[in-house]
């Protein structure tokens, strides 16, 4: 099937600020597409353009085969959106907002709505002004997930959710994918996109700088290898594709490009390998590579998302 979102050369300026600068993005039907970028990269702007809330200065956009600026009503019947900054009417209760948005969306499944309220542990009788950020986020998520939308646009959907709720959310997104629906999910939390996405686009300063399946993108980065050996071999850092070699007593660690894996494994085995851990590249690494931050800074929390994705 065709792409559900197809943006080519999209440019959006706010006064003298160029928020999007010739952005290309395609999301295929039935995939969960991660949309990654640092603050101010243009993620929210892109989503708003896709929704027809903003008007592009240049480029072409097709969403579900429609023009997002002209075919608003028809398009919005088929998609659902969760804004990054969920604002609710302070005097309405959470339940009232969910039902209102559901009706405006063209109807929601009542049973699914109730199940989601239960799942996300939301008290729907409270006035929105008394909700925490996480609870406001849940209201918008429930409203969107309870619809039959073909395409979901989620702008940093888990910001404010605690780990338990984040887990529940991931389960729901996977269920959506199993039903063949498409999701565009923006985030700067890499583990989240990594845990959920089939494909990822990385945006920086209004341009998509990298896009592809996780496997495709992984070859671009380095595996982190740590080994305990009997005797530390000489000249590891001179092997092709091996970087950042650190030796502490009998422990060796290094960052290794795909081409360097074979030579370093030979060397380590020859040196009497006792234990070996290798971590596949994370999106964290990819991300850092593109935004020029030293990769070592982020290895600490890089493991969080991976365990989900065996």
């Amino acid at each position, binding site marked *: 099937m065709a792409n559900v979102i197809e943006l080519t050369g999209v440019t959006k300026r706010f006064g003298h600020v160029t928020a999007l600068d010739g952005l290309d993005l395609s999301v295929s039907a039935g995939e969960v597409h991660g949309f990654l970028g640092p603050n101010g990269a243009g993620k929210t702007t892109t989503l*708003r353009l896709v*929704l027809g*809330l*903003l*008007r592009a200065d240049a480029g072409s956009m097709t969403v579900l085969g429609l023009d997002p600026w002209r075919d*608003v*009503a028809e398009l*919005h*019947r088929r*998609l*659902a*959106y969760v*804004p990054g*900054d*969920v*604002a*609710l*009417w*302070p*005097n*309405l*209760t959470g*339940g*009232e*907002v*969910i*039902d*209102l*948005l559901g*009706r*405006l*969306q*063209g109807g929601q499944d009542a049973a699914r709505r109730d199940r989601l309220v239960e799942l996300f542990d939301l*008290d*729907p*009788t*409270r*006035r929105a*002004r*008394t909700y925490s950020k996480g609870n406001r986020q849940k209201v*918008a998520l429930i409203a969107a997930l309870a619809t039959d939308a073909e395409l979901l*646009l989620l702008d940093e959907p888990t910001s404010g959710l605690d780990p338990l709720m984040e887990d529940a959310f991931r389960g729901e997104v996977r269920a959506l994918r199993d039903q063949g629906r498409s999701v565009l999910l923006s985030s700067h939390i890499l583990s989240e996109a990594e845990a959920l996405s089939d494909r990822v686009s990385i945006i920086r300063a209004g341009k998509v700088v990298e896009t592809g399946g996780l496997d495709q993108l992984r070859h671009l980065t380095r595996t982190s290898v740590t080994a305990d050996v009997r005797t530390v071999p000489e000249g590891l850092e001179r092997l092709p594709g091996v970087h950042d070699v650190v030796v502490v007593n009998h422990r060796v660690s290094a960052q290794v490009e795909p081409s360097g894996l074979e030579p370093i494994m030979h060397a380590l085995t020859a040196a009497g390998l006792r234990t070996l851990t290798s971590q596949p590249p994370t999106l964290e690494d990819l991300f850092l590579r593109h935004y020029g931050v030293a990769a070592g800074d982020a290895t600490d929390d890089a493991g969080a998302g991976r365990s989900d994705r065996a």
Partner: protein
Amino acid sequence: MRDTLVGTGSLIRLGLRRDRWLLPVWILAFAVMAGSTATASADLFPDLASRVEAARRLNGTASVVALFGRVYDPTSIGALSMIKYTAFMTAVLAVLVVVVMVRHTRADEESGRLELLGGGRLGRNAPLTAALTICVGASLLLGLLSGAALVAGGLPVAGSFAFGLGWAATGLAFGAVAGVTAQIASTSRSAIGMSSMIIAVTYVLRAVGDLAEPGPSFLSWLSPIGWNQQVRAYAGDRWWVLLLPLALFAVLVPVAFALRARRDLGAGLREERPGPARGSLAGVWDLAVRLQDRVLAAWLVAFVLFGAVIGSLVSGVEDFFGSANAQDLIKQLGGGQALTDAFLSAEITILGILAAVFGIAAVNHLRAEETAGHAESLLSTTTTRTRWATSHVVVALAGVALLMLLGGLSIGAGAALSLHDGGQVARVTAVSVAQVPGVWVMCSIALAVFGWLPRLTPGVWGLYVAFVALGEFGVLWHAPQWLTDLSPFQHAPRLPLDSGTVTAVVALTATAAVVAALGYVGWRRRDLTA
């Protein structure tokens, strides 16, 4: 203690910066109004006899006493000319003080602004202290400037400053009241609502108290607005009465701080009750009504009451303005033939001007919903831009029409009763409803600004004030005719209705439609902004 005040200075500066238009405009408006009225009164009541006569009639008309109070020295031109300002405008002043106080305390908490600043070391008591400081400063400045304006208007110095300081002290008292309600209420809206209720009660207390013969009963002394009347500026200048509002201020301010200490940022002392788990709102129409219905209901009540009072005044009009001068003036203002018609027309025009406040605010709700981020949620559903905007525009237009209809009926009924002429109901209601298209023009201007220049939405109020001022003072300022004619209020139909009325109604309706259509065009092609 000092710790809890950290950051007060910067909050005051920030507050003054945010209010750099609001406060000066408001303070100057009060001073200029008072001064201009003083000048005008000297022409209206040139000799002692005319003053005594006017004061006698005012004091003898119950509805005037209830609405404005009494003239305590019939020989004093000052007491006579300030009659509308002593209680009525003081209540308006109280509302403004409350809005400013809540804006800098509760509303800032709600928007998260204080939390943001609080992170950067902000003492717990800093916001309340800053708001009170701004309020005290503004009230004093308003009082002193008004005193000076009254002196410039030709009134005695002592009385003028007694009057000005009366305003200042009342401002302080209601500032402290708002300081307390801002701690009790759980939202800024309910804080303003609670304070407004208190203002209304104090107003009614003194109305009932003033009606007692011969002078005020103890009820008037229970009301801060009553105190302001009992200062009796230009009629004895009882300075000691000023101590009462100051004492109230001194009592309430510590109470506000004590309450503040007992609650969390963002929370009120009043507990939240759970609401419905299921929504009954079927769409954006329901939502627009739900967001504005209480406000509209309050306006409707006010219009009906105001109308009843105005209507019942009619029978007194003929002898009320006994002097030939006054009759000329009223005829000029009203443009009608009979004096009663002129009076009714003038009051109904005012009704229209007031209804425009509701209409503009209702249309400006669109912008508020947009900046709050609510529009983003709605417009990413199947709701189209046109449909959503129309939901609020309809509330505005229908609300205005309803206000003018009920206000007109109420005036008409009052007039019919007091003139023993049932025919008044229909003709007064008709002319009141005929004001609607002019008010709609203001609403559609607000829509056009929303569509094309959303960031200038507050500027609609400036335009509104300019139009009203041109109508009131245009002649005084020698404003060119074409400029005055720009104001839709200038073309509002008056009694008696004739074929010219139809022309005006059609022309104004057409103008409103064209301007609104223009607004829609802009709105449909612009970006959603914050």
